[in-house]
């Protein structure tokens, strides 16, 4: 059913169509509209006996999800940014216990300095948490990936994060083809747990495991991710048959990656999330001028589709990974994964860190990076649109005075005075 609808509302209604039994929520921008909508849906009785639990922290949100999932309920929650960090301990617990919780991460920067705007620092920080991570490029995929997420989670008994860019997607109103209940019911059978807290068949869950089996339990967490890597392409095909569109978006290749003008491209940009839309515009523009450029989107960041990435970009001369987060002290996060995929090749790989804390990633910015790549002047690591003068002035203040004050405030004062 076509609707003109806010991304958050579309996700909420899609999640509702997945018939969760327990939804727990703690407010944090820019995720709030999703759980606000779900509260309304639950209160109106549209989800039967579904329980909506207002918790007192994200730590408890994930803990409630753990308890409910282990009791056989299909569980959903949503968070972002600091909230995701506040639930890190139960986050690892949920994946370690193998509980198929689905959670939306409305991607937002992490402080300090506090910043409510979009980048991928939050979910990228949890790339090793054992959760499956899917990244949405637009609101249609954000909505559809949730249906896929519940199915993947319950098939392999792992929790799944659906990452959608905060504000850029969550608060954007677009035309969305919302799924029919009957279609979702067909795609997503009722949840049958592998482990259950049930007095008629008592079991202990969460026992202490020492060196004798810890490696094996951890390995199984990896094996399930690998299993998901094989499963996602099949489920993506099932999804097309039922819904008539690809869950990963128009240019979805195999459920794991999306491919736009990649086949004959000499320069391939690799990215995740909504920035891919802008990059496609750059690709169209530069193709008209004769530059063979394309963009590979990564939908499934965990598990990381090494083969799909390698196969897709093997023929390229240069790869530019556009990242919305980075690892201080080394550089690109996604880049290091792409490098693993392209090991033993002579492809030149560069990292372009862009759009931190909500800074717009413009066509001009991306075009500039591609032009640098063509000219062989693109460094291995570059921060797009970085105000070097501003940084140099702060570094100079640091040199001149020991008590130079808080750096964020210094930069703001500097920006404001010019």
């Amino acid at each position, binding site marked *: 059913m076509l609707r003109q609808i806010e991304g958050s509302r579309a996700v909420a209604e899609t999640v509702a169509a997945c018939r969760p*039994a*327990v939804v*727990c929520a703690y407010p944090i921008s820019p995720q709030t509209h999703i759980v606000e909508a779900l509260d309304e849906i639950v209160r109106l009785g549209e989800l039967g*006996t*579904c*329980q909506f*639990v*207002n*918790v*007192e*922290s994200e*730590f*408890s949100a994930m*803990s*409630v*999800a*753990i*308890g*409910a*999932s*282990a*009791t*056989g*309920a299909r*569980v959903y929650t949503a968070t972002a940014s600091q909230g995701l960090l506040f639930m890190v*301990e*139960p986050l690892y*617990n949920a994946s370690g*216990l193998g509980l198929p919780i689905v959670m939306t991460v409305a991607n937002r920067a992490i402080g300090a300095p506090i910043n409510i705007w979009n980048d991928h620092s939050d979910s990228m920080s949890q790339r090793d948490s054992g959760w499956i991570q899917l990244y949405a490029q637009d609101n249609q995929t954000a909505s559809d990936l949730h249906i896929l997420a519940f199915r993947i989670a319950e098939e392999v008994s792992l929790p799944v994060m659906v990452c959608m860019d905060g504000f850029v997607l969550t608060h954007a109103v677009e035309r969305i083809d919302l799924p029919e209940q009957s279609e979702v019911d067909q795609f997503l059978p009722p949840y049958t747990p592998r482990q*259950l*807290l*049930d*007095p008629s*068949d*008592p*079991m*202990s*869950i*969460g*026992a*202490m*495991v*020492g060196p*004798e*089996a810890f490696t094996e339990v951890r390995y199984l967490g990896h094996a399930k991710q690998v299993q998901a890597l094989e499963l996602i392409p099949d489920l993506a095909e099932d999804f097309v048959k039922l819904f008539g569109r690809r869950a990963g978006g128009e240019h979805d290749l195999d459920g794991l990656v999306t491919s736009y003008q990649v086949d004959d491209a000499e320069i391939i940009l690799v990215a995740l999330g909504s920035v891919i839309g802008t990059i496609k515009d750059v690709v169209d523009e530069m193709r008209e001028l004769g530059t063979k450029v394309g963009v590979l989107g990564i939908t499934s960041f965990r598990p990381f589709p090494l083969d799909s990435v390698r196969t897709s970009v093997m023929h390229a001369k240069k790869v530019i990974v556009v990242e919305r987060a980075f690892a201080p002290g080394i550089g690109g996060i996604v880049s290091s994964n792409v490098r693993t995929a392209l090991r033993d090749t002579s492809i030149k790989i560069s990292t372009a860190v862009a759009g931190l804390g909500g800074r717009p990633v413009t066509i001009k910015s991306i075009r500039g990076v591609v032009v640098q790549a063509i000219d062989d002047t693109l460094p291995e690591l570059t921060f797009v649109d970085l105000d070097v003068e501003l940084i140099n002035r702060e570094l100079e203040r640091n040199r001149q005075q020991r008590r130079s004050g808080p750096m964020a405030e210094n930069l703001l004062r500097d920006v404001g005075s010019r």
Partner: protein
Amino acid sequence: MSTPLKFYQVGSFAVGNRLIDEADLSVQSSTSRSNSLTSGHRACQGCGEALGARYAIDAAMAATDGKLVAVNATGCLEVFSTPYPETSWRLPWIHSLFGNASAVATGVAAALKAQGKSDIRVVAQGGDGGTVDIGFGPLSGMFERNDDVLYICYDNEAYMNTGVQRSGATPPGARTNTSHAVGEHPGASFTQGKNLPLIAMAHGIPYVATATVADLHDLEAKVKKAMGMRGARYLHILVPCPLGWGSRSEETIKLARLATESGLFPVFEAEYGEITETKKIRRRVRVEEYLKPQKRFAHLFGANGHSEMLSAIQAIADKNVAKFNLWDSEEADTNHG
């Protein structure tokens, strides 16, 4: 307790007192008890927590006809009961983290409600560290939402699992490995403390009670009463720890009794924020009688002891006695007070 008999007439608080009505026998004395925390676990000799957990969970199992799920915080109870691949638990049991037992239990209760299985009940349990310190926020949230969970705190007054460090429930003057018995003010500080039963009461929840492993009938009656109610309930059980308290393993029950008889651990019940029942002290003792057998208080005694600290602790006990009206001279055996 409804029985008019005073058990100490046979000289003990024995579990299987033959002189009382069969109906008044404890759950523990019944051969049909669920034995929820069964033998073979790795608790220390004389562990008060193992005893308290078995008493409480068996009583809860009896009260719910075995339809019970337990959520466990990280701590001694979790570690000694489930060394992989063994478990001592004979009921559905989950351990998640140190500070989230109450929230996990909320999730279990929410799922059961969504599934229409309201006959299955939920208990969350943890030590004092997991309850009054690291798990305090989620527990307060569980109280505030009035989630249908009985939370049981087994209070041994320090972080024993990590090797005896001070918690928010460690009593003033007590020696732990982060409140050493050295310096001008040896042992844990004389702060205002964190009385979780009173804090729980301030949430106005349906039921709050304290108990000790020294009074099995009282403990079982409170669990039974709690399981007869819905909403958030809190039971705080004092469980002496021979390792952390430096006490003899055969004196666990005795110390728990002395804790109440000295007035340092008031035993009471409260409903919706109001105290409804207080366990009167029959034989009041001075705090020294309770403190002296415990090595964690050894620095208070002797030639180089701290009589001023003993006086301060006695003042706390006296204040409790007055505040909770623990002393009823008509019911008293002898007046040591």
